[in-house]
């Protein structure tokens, strides 16, 4: 492209503990065994794109606990949302939750999450890696979608759409969560559990297990659910937010990379939206309670 503007792209300098490309995922392919995937904190993902005037399905980076470092290979505008963190551009403090302009060569450092788990780094124009089944999400369960970026990965940036960069009039930095409260609508397999142990669930305090990931939020330390019947459930279709209970009796809340079918009974479902967005930001050890939803 001699004579033209340099192609917009960002190079990964520091990949962080786990940084993936995410968008709205691949809903509609579950019958082929394809997980839905997509940004775990859908609210923070949507906000990052709105700040930049991006279409609502533009691909962004989702970081895990310790942020990411990027270098702009051409001038771009970025925004960081989700878990609050320090944002620095070539060493100077920059805004979280607002459009930030990067010159060619500038280094964006998205710091460790001060609270929460996952920060979102959007770029105006969106990351333009090739889509798979209509989505640029990395699916960590089945391996579909773009590979996990490592230091040196160059991420192309798409052309900006017609909407202007907006910014926000007022953006509240979320406070550190003190507990995760998950509304739970019982069913379809609540009858697989002793009623007394289901009653105890509402009084129990669990903690987020460090084994949690994009597939599921695992719990520990709470009251164990006791099955009222033996035998195995033939595998059946699973939904986002399904609370599966394996034989150890500790609930697992299915997040975006959950398998499309599963054989453990589902006690109930946590609705998508704010409750699952909060689950995406719940770090290990955070107290978890279930309330009737």
């Amino acid at each position, binding site marked *: 492209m001699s004579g033209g503007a340099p192609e917009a792209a960002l190079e990964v300098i520091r990949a962080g503990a786990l940084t993936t490309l995410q968008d709205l995922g691949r*809903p*509609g*392919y*579950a*019958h*082929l*065994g*394809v997980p839905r995937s997509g940004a775990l904190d859908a609210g923070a993902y949507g906000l990052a794109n709105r700040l930049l005037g991006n279409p609502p399905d533009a691909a962004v980076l989702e970081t895990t606990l310790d942020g990411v470092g990027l270098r702009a290979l051409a001038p771009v505008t970025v925004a960081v949302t989700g878990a609050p963190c320090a944002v620095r551009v070539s060493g100077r403090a920059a805004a979280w939750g607002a459009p930030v302009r990067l010159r060619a060569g500038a280094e964006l450092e998205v710091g460790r999450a001060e609270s929460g788990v996952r920060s979102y780094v959007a770029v105006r124009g969106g990351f333009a890696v090739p889509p*798979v*089944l209509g989505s640029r999400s990395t699916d960590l369960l*089945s391996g*579909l979608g773009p590979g996990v970026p490592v230091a040196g990965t160059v991420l192309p940036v798409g052309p900006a759409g017609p909407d202007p960069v907006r910014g926000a009039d007022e953006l509240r930095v979320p406070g550190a969560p003190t507990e995760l409260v998950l509304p739970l*609508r019982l*069913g*379809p*397999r609540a009858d697989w559990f002793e009623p007394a142990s289901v009653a105890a669930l509402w009084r129990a305090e669990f903690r987020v297990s460090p084994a949690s990931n994009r597939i599921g939020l695992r719990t520990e330390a709470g009251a164990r659910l006791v099955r009222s019947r033996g035998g195995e459930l*033939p*595998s*059946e*279709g*699973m*939904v986002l*937010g*399904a609370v599966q209970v394996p034989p150890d009796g500790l609930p697992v809340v299915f997040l975006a990379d959950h*398998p*499309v*079918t599963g054989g453990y009974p*589902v006690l*109930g*479902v*946590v*609705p998508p939206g704010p409750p699952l967005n909060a689950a995406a930001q719940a770090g290990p050890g955070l107290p978890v309670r279930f309330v009737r939803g």
Partner: protein
Amino acid sequence: MRPLVVGGEALLIELDSAQEVAALHAELLRRREAGELGDVRDVVPAARTVLLDGVAGPGALADRIARWEVPPLARTEGPLVTVPVRYDGPDLTEVARRWGVAEREVADVVAGTEFRVAFCGFAPGFGYLTGLPERLHLPRRNTPRTAVPAGSLALAGEYAGVYPRSSPGGWQLIGTTDAVVWDPEREPAALFAPGVRVRFEEVTG
């Protein structure tokens, strides 16, 4: 047919047999094709259930479905694909022994069976194919293999399947196909979508 509401936007319909699942699944696809199903994002059959996800009103949909007359599945319902197979699997001898046939007759048994994709799972494009009579159902291997090659035709329980990519697996491997069962760049991405009929045709070399 027992409909169970799943959260605010899904419905799980429990059935008594794989045949009933296949019949309801075919009816759902027919009605979706005819524009009679309404907004349903995912229709996900499984062993004894069909999940309808992304539904505006699961309760109302359950009431409608309860009034349907679901005809039994016609043998010829669904598209037919023919898949070439070389019978070179490492478990061929073991499968022949369990079936009580000569090794070379395994291919005839499989070729004489019309399979149907009951559902997908395990990995994108991995179809669970039914059709083998009960006397030919096989256990999984005692020790799963750490790597089953892509394209392996495998049997376990009441199911046959083809591994879409190399992965760990505990099924009995009887052959290999060059057919690409999963390609996300292709439309359709999965050769074995639920409802598809499958014949395996022996090839040599």
